[in-house]
């Protein structure tokens, strides 16, 4: 009898403890909140983003000396939780970040879906919500006031690629589109289709495949039968590997293959055992080897902030404690930190509405490239993409010509 009361009491006490809020955020700090995807289906991108953010915060605090507000240098702090790549986690964690940790800005979780899930909460608390992982244009048609995008819109990914191929081979006509059926890849496909038609190409094949696909053989056989010259497609990591691998299995030799997301990652070449990856191209927001520099910024008349590329990479490695090369997820997230710092300094205030207004007007350049958003919707318009190609196990930037680190191999070598 007594023990049962005791059991119940213990339960209540434990619950009470778990409910209790913990420490308040210390003043005189700017806190960046982030419901990160550390586990679940976006774990890979989540890890990269955390690394990128940590690296840039490190740079701001230790190299730059802190954010200059009202004549004082204030350090940045980073507070992140794991949302498990799930929408329920995002909403509750964002609220916790805003109310308990008193963060000054919220970074979105990876993917368009999770970005959308968190937006209403941020909106309710009138909190600047910076999106480095949701590429869907539709996010910005919902009337959210506090959202700002760093990642370029999905529809632009393959535009440059097609321009490049037209530049090198004006006769190439037959284009095949095969993308993953995800928000991001569909945007890319839409953009690519429109642009290909504008360039006078004929689209001989257009299909999507679902997420998590394990065998593309039927789709690729179909594509082979349509005899395309240029293949653009992809979506995420695993299907990008599968795509090239099974194209090789089926001996589909075309003049150019460009895959979004996966092809640009270092692991890609290794996973395909090298040879198959040779000549495969991929568009990217940022790639190790892109040469954006303060000098370049001056040339186009933009402010420069942040570490140089090599500095960023070493800070990134330090932040994660692992010897991995940052990819565009890291660069995006990192650049987002710099954008926030820039906006706060421009306004000389941390007030949410003012910062949001400043972000709307902000134009600058960093190691990530240009940054400029549409003032009303918050959509990214200033960032341009690069195209890279695997050549002898190295990622060579082949487009745009002014950023190129090597010459395009065209047509690509046979599988």
């Amino acid at each position, binding site marked *: 009898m007594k023990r049962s009361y005791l059991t119940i009491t213990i339960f209540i006490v434990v619950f009470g403890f778990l409910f209790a809020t913990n420490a308040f955020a210390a003043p005189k700090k700017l806190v960046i909140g982030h419901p990160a995807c550390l*586990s679940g*289906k976006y*774990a*890979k991108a989540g*890890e990269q983003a955390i690394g990128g953010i940590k690296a840039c915060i490190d740079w701001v605090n230790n190299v730059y000396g802190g954010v200059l507000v009202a004549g004082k240098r204030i350090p940045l702090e980073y507070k992140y939780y794991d949302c498990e790549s799930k929408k329920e986690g995002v909403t509750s964690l964002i609220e916790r970040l805003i109310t308990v940790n008193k963060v000054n800005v919220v970074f979105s979780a990876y993917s368009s879906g999770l970005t959308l899930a968190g937006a209403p909460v941020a909106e309710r608390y009138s909190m600047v919500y910076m999106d480095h992982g949701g590429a869907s244009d539709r996010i910005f048609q919902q009337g959210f006031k506090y959202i700002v995008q760093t990642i370029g819109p999905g529809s632009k990914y393959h535009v440059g690629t097609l321009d490049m191929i037209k530049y090198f081979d004006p006769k190439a006509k037959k284009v095949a589109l095969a993308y993953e*059926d995800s928000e991001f890849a569909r945007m890319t496909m839409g953009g690519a289709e429109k642009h290909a038609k504008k360039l006078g190409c004929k*689209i*001989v*094949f*257009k*299909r*999507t*495949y*679902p997420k*998590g*696909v*394990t*065998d593309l*053989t*039927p*789709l690729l*056989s*179909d594509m082979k*039968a*349509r005899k395309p010259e240029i293949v653009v497609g992809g979506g995420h*990591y*695993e*299907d990008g*590997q*599968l795509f090239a*691998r*099974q194209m090789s*299995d*089926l*001996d589909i030799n075309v003049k150019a293959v460009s895959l979004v997301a*996966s092809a640009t990652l270092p*692991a890609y070449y*290794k*996973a*395909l*055992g*090298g*040879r*198959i990856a040779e000549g495969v191209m991929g568009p990217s927001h940022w790639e190790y080897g892109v040469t954006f520099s303060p000098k370049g910024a001056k040339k186009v008349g933009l402010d420069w902030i942040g570490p140089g590329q090599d500095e960023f990479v070493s800070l990134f490695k330090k932040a994660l404690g692992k010897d991995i090369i940052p990819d565009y997820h890291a660069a995006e997230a990192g650049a987002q930190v710099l954008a926030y710092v820039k906006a706060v300094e421009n306004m000389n205030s941390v007030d949410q509405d003012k910062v949001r207004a400043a972000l709307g007007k902000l134009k600058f350049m960093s190691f990530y490239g240009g940054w400029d958003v549409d003032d009303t919707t918050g959509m990214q318009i200033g960032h341009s993409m690069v195209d890279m190609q695997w050549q002898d196990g190295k990622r060579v930037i082949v487009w745009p010509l002014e950023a190129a680190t090597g010459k395009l191999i065209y047509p690509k070598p046979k599988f």
Partner: protein
Amino acid sequence: MKIFVRGGDFIYKGNTQETLSESLSEVFSNRVKEEKMILTLLAGNLIHGLLLGGVYGLATMGLSLIFGVINVVNVGHGQFIMVGAFVALTMFTVLGLSPVIAIPAALIIGMALGFFFFYTVMRRLIRAPELTSLLATFAMGILLEEIAKLIFGADFRGYYWAVGKITLPITTIPMSKLYAFIGSIAIALFLYLWFSKTRIGTAIRSVMEDSEGARVCGVNVSWIHALSFAIGIGLTVMSGVLLTMFIPVGINPYMGGGYTLKAFVIAVLGGLTSPYGAFFAGLIFGLIENGAYTLFALIPGVAPFPLTVSLAFWMLFFLLLVKPTGLLGK
């Protein structure tokens, strides 16, 4: 309008302007060409489907065996396939051994895992309501995923086993796929002989039929339970190796989930309790999966890939209702 829909534009929908600009004769000749092409495609896809089906079949045998003997649906099935994939990957990339050698290694690792999970967890759940066993196997799957993530990271990996390919008039087949198929058939055949010719195989079959009866006849039922679970897991892990011979990329800790659902469909097609049924159902499933894609692609305005997957699940659903003993069952 009708003509255009019939003959013109199978490839993509909604682009009527281009279609309209084509002359009628062109449309007609296109139609003949198109039909011939579709038949070629179908034939090629069916060959690939058959090859893949063999691996699917083997990958499902473990699930059926475990359900047949201890009446537990292994919801973490796919995660054991993932373990197999990592075994193959590690042996190839770190030790430089061909996947053929990884097959027995995977069997041993899988059986060890099987015995471990049986004696720590499953033994206590055999007579429990299915709710608990479903959840327990699911939790095992998550555990494997997270451990794999801890060891290998969340990267998508792959390996390249260069053994050439053969080119047929209708399609190209990489040798590694062919080896995987032959391997699957050999293992299934071996298992069949083992089940029917050896004492212990007979004991397993008797427990499957009637565990009480077998107990009365002096079969050590709890040992058979443990052994069958271990063999089931061993088979599953082994099939993971064969699967990487088929699709040697995209290996990552979270790759298993999709295979679990596929294995369910196949196991049900095969009657859920019969490993051989599962093997043949795997072949049929492979054929349907690849064949249906080609046919669905003819319908304008739909996405054939998800429709194929959807078809598989509706098939499972109706089959369960109409004939729970499976396509090949009595």
